[in-house]
């Protein structure tokens, strides 16, 4: 504390130096005058007294100097003068400084922006009270429980309190005579109290309330006009009136994380909920777990389930920060984390390439100043002082670059914050700059300063005094150029790596857009219906109505939509017994229940056997259809048609068909297994998707389908989309990856080619005398061209070979993000990248070659 007070006092002094000097003089005058007064009283004459007093005081000059030094911070003032000097050096060559700062700023801007997005999406704290005593509860490896089990757990009083939430439900909002689909989040009445969600206006939902809603800031601003009198307003949601009691703050972050943002929270029986619990005071998650485990065994007694035991895989996971990624959600988030990590690394590499350029530039400059430094050192200047002065220059560049990069970050994150990703539960990130971003940027600035400045500074001051004075600004020995060559080779090598990654993502995007998904989506509409009152009857009458619509070729219900993480296939695991025998096969497969026309609508061929029939209804013998992978896994080479499959709960089903392999959960999956069961033989759930094949373009039909379904049952909510749109989420990583990686790779290549051009130019400049002599002795332009070309080729070839060697390994982990058709080991990639680099390197050598050819021996021989 005392230390900072002292620093504060000293800093204040810096701004008041002239006033300080004035005051000090006045004080001296008073002191001398006071002494003179005293001497006069003791009998001395006025002028003698004054003289005597002055003599006694001594030199006011020396005293003033000593007094001033009490206040000064020498290192700070030295630093200031170093920075001033560096600024002058940069101003002398503004174009170069601007290029250096701009290349740093672009790299740092991209890097910090990805950092900001990743931090917000993955590691942000949710809006809640005391996240440490809040836990997400999962039983049987799953965070969802139905309301019956929820109430059981509530009455068991294991925790202080529990709350349930069902995110991403579609809610019908009737406004006037129009209906809108909203992303609603159904919560139990305890949710707001238990989680402790702050509201900006009004109040949270309270216990015992049944028909109230709290709206998010975005919904309030965009859909309710941002009216301040919104509290108390009634919204008709799914046919029932709800009163708006509160508005959430702008930076509300949902417990689910990842930027998910619903339109509103409402109290409605969610059917199934994700479970959150407030731990009792002083009880950690571990201790709470030991209390929960026996209750789950009790659950198994009350709600026995043959498939899965409640008490199995019980877990309490954290709700915020990095801890959240350790649990079940963490496993799902691995590809996302990997994706961000890759982008951070790629952009960091670009920053390093930019650093290499600057370092090379400073290196060149430091050699031309080597004589100056040698003289200063021989006159007694300390080496550290000179190094510090050179470092000030790179520090200034680093600070300017980081500052501009941060400005870019603020601009980009504001743009990104305005983006609304229309997943079923929309994603909106609220990215705000924070202290961590600042710390991260400071770290970047330090790294940039050291990587750009340290080597040039040490080299410039390391040369022997005599040698430097003699060499007089010319390269001293091969060491300097070797260093710059190494930098360029490094730049070219990492450019190859970046280009390889970028090309892979580009090919992936092309491949993914042309959709080798194993099914056809060009004429497909998907309508999702939630919560009709009589579900079985609703499905039948809906199908009937839809088939009557002109322009609809076929309609089928299904429980899952492929390639959609939110409406996903259920992942089933378990030992299946082919032929009901003793041999059991453990498999993990995707399961969907579909209607008879599903395979026709999706254009998934049935390779053998038959599709489902209308006669495969409840009560009829159970049947299944397997995909090729699954059939092979279960039955080997024997034809599975007609064979019986026994499920873990001892149900038997007969295999009636083999469907061709397609994609299920994501585009990158390999050898995925799938099993289909007839829709009408599956237990009824609270929602269903209707798949429709249209004759014409699906866009025109979507509206009619929507109206037809909405007219059937007013208590149901309907969400109709074109299937292609639904895949936007599945394509998002490829799009973002291709855009960012492609841009970064090209930018890196540009920087590397600038580096190459600079090094060639510089070495041509150094060899002008030599070239002049050669030309004078009769070297042809071809010989001169060969000189430059040889050097260029040597650099490019070395860079290219090492780059290709690194890239061959470095791009392997990317296969996690790519469709199987795009292989990371494909030699075509590397050949294409090498060709691109060769062309660009050729272009970068043009200017140095011209410079070398223009050398006039008469001028060059006088060149010094």
């Amino acid at each position, binding site marked *: 504390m*005392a230390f900072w007070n002292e620093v504060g006092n000293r800093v204040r002094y810096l701004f008041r130096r002239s006033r300080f000097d004035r005051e000090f003089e006045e004080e001296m005058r*008073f002191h001398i005058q006071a002494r003179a007064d005293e001497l006069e009283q003791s009998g001395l004459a006025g002028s003698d007294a004054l003289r005597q007093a002055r003599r006694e005081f001594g030199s006011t000059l020396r005293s003033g100097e000593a007094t001033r030094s009490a206040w000064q911070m020498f290192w700070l003032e030295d630093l200031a003068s170093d920075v001033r000097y560096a600024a002058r050096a940069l101003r002398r060559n503004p174009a170069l400084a601007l290029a250096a700062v701009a290349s740093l700023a672009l790299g740092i801007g991209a890097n910090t922006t990805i950092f900001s997005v990743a931090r917000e999406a993955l590691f942000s704290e949710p809006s809640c009270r005391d996240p440490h005593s809040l836990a997400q509860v999962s039983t049987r490896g799953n965070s969802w429980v139905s309301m019956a089990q929820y109430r059981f757990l509530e009455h068991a009083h294991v925790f202080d309190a529990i709350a349930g939430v069902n995110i991403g439900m579609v809610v019908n909002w009737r406004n006037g005579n129009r209906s809108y689909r909203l992303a609603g989040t159904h919560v139990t009445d305890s949710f707001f109290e238990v989680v402790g969600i702050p509201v900006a206006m009004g109040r949270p939902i309270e216990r015992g309330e049944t028909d109230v809603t709290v709206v998010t800031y975005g919904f309030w601003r965009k859909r309710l006009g941002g009216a301040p009198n919104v509290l108390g307003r009634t919204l008709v949601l799914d046919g029932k009136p709800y009163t708006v009691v509160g508005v959430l703050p702008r930076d509300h972050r949902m417990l689910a994380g990842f930027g998910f943002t619903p339109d509103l929270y409402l109290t409605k029986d969610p059917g199934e909920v994700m479970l959150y619990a407030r731990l009792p005071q002083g009880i950690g998650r571990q201790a709470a777990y030991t209390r929960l485990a026996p209750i789950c065994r009790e659950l198994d007694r009350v709600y026995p389930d043959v498939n899965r035991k409640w008490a199995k895989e019980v877990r309490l996971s954290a709700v915020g920060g990095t801890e959240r990624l350790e649990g079940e959600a963490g496993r799902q988030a691995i590809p996302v984390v990997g994706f961000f990590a890759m982008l951070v690394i790629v952009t960091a590499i670009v920053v390093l390439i930019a650093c290499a350029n600057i370092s090379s530039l400073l290196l060149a400059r430091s050699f031309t100043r080597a004589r100056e430094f040698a003289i200063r050192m021989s006159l007694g200047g300390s080496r550290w002082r000179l190094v510090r002065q050179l470092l000030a220059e790179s520090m200034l560049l680093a600070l300017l670059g980081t500052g501009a990069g941060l400005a870019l970050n603020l601009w980009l994150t504001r743009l990104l914050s305005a983006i609304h990703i229309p997943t079923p539960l929309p994603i909106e990130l609220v990215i705000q700059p924070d202290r961590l971003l600042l710390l991260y940027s400071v770290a970047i600035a330090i790294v940039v300063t050291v990587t750009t400045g340290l080597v040039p500074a040490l080299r410039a001051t390391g040369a022997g005094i005599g040698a430097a004075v003699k060499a007089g600004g010319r390269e001293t020995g091969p060491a300097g150029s070797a260093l710059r060559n190494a930098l360029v080779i490094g730049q070219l090598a990492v450019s190859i790596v970046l280009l390889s990654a970028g090309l892979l993502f580009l090919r992936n995007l092309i491949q993914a857009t042309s959709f080798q998904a194993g099914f056809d989506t060009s004429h497909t509409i998907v309508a999702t219906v939630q919560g009709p009152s009589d579900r079985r009857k609703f499905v039948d009458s809906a199908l009937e109505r839809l088939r009557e619509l002109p322009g609809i070729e076929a309609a089928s219900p299904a429980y899952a939509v492929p390639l959609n993480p939110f409406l996903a296939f259920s992942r089933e695991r378990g030992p299946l017994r082919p032929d009901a025998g003793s041999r059991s096969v453990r498999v993990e497969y995707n399961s969907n229940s579909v209607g008879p026309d599903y395979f026709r609508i999706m254009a998934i061929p049935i390779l053998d056997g038959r599709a489902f029939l209308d006669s495969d209804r409840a009560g009829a013998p159970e049947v299944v259809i397997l995909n090729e992978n699954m059939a092979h896994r279960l039955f080997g080479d024997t034809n599975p048609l007609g064979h019986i499959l026994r499920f873990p709960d001892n149900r038997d089903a007969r295999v009636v068909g083999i469907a061709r392999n397609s994609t299920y959960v994501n585009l990158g999956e390999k050898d995925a297994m799938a099993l289909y069961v007839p829709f009408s033989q599956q237990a009824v759930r609270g929602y269903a998707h209707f798949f429709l094949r249209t004759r014409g373009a699906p866009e025109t039909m979507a509206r009619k389908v929507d109206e037809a379904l909405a007219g059937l049952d007013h208590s149901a909510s309907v969400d109709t989309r074109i299937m292609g749109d639904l895949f936007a989420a599945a394509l998002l990583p490829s799009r973002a990856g291709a855009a960012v990686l492609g841009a970064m790779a090209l930018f890196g290549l540009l920087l590397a080619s600038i580096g190459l051009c600079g090094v060639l130019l510089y070495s041509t400049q150094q060899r002008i005398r030599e070239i002049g002599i050669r030309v004078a002795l009769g070297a042809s332009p071809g010989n001169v061209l060969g000189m430059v070309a040889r050097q260029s080729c040597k650099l490019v070839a070395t860079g290219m070979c090492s780059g290709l060697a690194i890239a061959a390994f470095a791009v392997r982990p990317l296969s996690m993000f790519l469709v199987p058709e795009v292989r990371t080991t494909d030699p075509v990639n590397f050949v294409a990248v090498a060709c691109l680099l060769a062309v660009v390197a050729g272009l970068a050598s043009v200017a140095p070659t011209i410079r070398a050819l223009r050398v006039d021996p008469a001028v060059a021989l006088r060149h010094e």
Partner: protein
Amino acid sequence: MESQPSLELLPGTLYLLILRTLNHGPLHGYAIVKRIKEASREGLQIEDGSLYPALNRMLVKGWLAAEWGVSENNRKARFYKLTPEGRKQLDKEAGEFGRLVRAIQLVMRTA
């Protein structure tokens, strides 16, 4: 007035003397010198040239505060006074100094 030549100050004791002198109330620089001289019965003479650097170092450390006022002779003068930190420092240094002097005296008497 002829007297014994004044004593060299022990290193570090200048701060202590100034702090102690200001303990009674604010004084300007000249008065500090005079007060120390009188209190030591002319034994200690602080050089005018070293007084002000010391005062300023103490200002930097935050032990003293300075403000302009009017002297007994109606002249504008800069008065120094103790801050709470300065008072704490005085207690600390006075205690340390006391222990040091006692220890030295013990050695001088017995050894």
